[in-house]
């Protein structure tokens, strides 16, 4: 009895779909536990030191359009955090009046609202000229 069950299980028409189902369920479990929409990062000033009080703007990217999704300020240690990201493709820009602005940083995620901590800091530089 048990051996026939195992034999059926190993047949390719059963094993492959089963593997796929297990993989899908496993992935969904991971997604559900990691999709709070938290985006964390650090902003550095032109001198390479953490920049406090900079405004970081988050924009959502589509195939054709860009839309603002929120703004936040960096804390004393230059760190910032968004908690309501619902997209999988966002762009961030940091700027502080009088100091400069950073380039547009594109962040692509594996699923919507994936929690992410940026590895590279946003670097604010003085505008040219």
């Amino acid at each position, binding site marked *: 009895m048990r051996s026939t069950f195992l034999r059926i299980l190993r047949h390719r028409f059963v094993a*492959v779909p089963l593997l796929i189902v297990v993989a899908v369920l496993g992935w969904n479990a991971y997604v559900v536990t990691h999709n709070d929409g938290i985006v964390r990062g650090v902003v550095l000033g032109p001198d390479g030191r953490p920049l406090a009080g900079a405004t970081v703007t988050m924009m959502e990217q*589509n195939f054709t359009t860009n839309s603002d999704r929120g703004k936040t300020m960096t804390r004393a240690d230059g760190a910032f955090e968004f908690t309501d990201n619902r997209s999988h493709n966002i762009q961030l820009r940091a700027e502080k009046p009088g100091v400069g602005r950073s380039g547009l940083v594109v962040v*692509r995620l594996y699923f*919507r609202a994936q929690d992410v901590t940026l590895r590279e800091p946003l670097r604010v530089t003085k505008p040219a000229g």
Partner: protein
Amino acid sequence: MIKKRTRRTWTHASLHLAMLAVSFCMLLPFYWVLKTSLTGENIFVYPPSIVPVHPHLFYYIDVWYYIPFPRYLLNSVVVSVLSIAANVVFNALAAYALTRHFRGRGAVITVLLSCMMIPFQTTIVPAYLITAKLGLLDSYLGLALPTFSTIVCIFVYKASFEAVPRSLIDAARIDGLSELQIIRRIMLPLSTSAVATNIVLSFIWSWNNFLWPLIVVRDPLMQTLPLGLSRFLSYHENTTGALYAFCIMVLAPGILLFLMAQKEFIRGLTSGATKG
């Protein structure tokens, strides 16, 4: 003696070389599209590089979210499941009927064989009118209905059923089994290869079907994968690698099924081609 063996080795080597060249030509398109879907750099950059540079999976994520890919997938799956289920039932019933001798059997077989000569493409205009009259436009049933039965598979079943020993059937009748039960309990279990062939063939045909959904479906929500792919192409053309990720995602089930069920596939194509 040795000369003959070296000659054979040389011949084999040159045959292998030829087949390697052929394989390269057959596999090149797959590689190229896979590469483009992973990097997208050769959309905007010329000359393209042969090996993927900075590959990433984000185009696939784009396809999943920006296009209603899950919806298209669902539609394709529902239509295919409908088609497969109906195919197995209708074809098996018809094939069983054809194994019996009755008046008009020859005529029915002739009709079926001549229907094989009428390709689907010859019927699109009236089929559209019929579907519209039945009120089945933009519906799963309307999409699947023309594919509910295939003549090729009927003959595959028929050959398989005719191979079942007569004594088994007679014994079953003595036991009081009805005809339906005979099909379900005796014929089908002994014809698993025919059933597998039917499933594989009808899945591939309904999954890949493009012209019929194009005609019958206007509602964007009811589109199947081929339609969605074509629409994406016409909107975005070559501006994004997501198109090619879409292609790969669409081809993957077909390739997977083919690799798993090659034997059934080939059997279905050859036996159908030789008119059962």
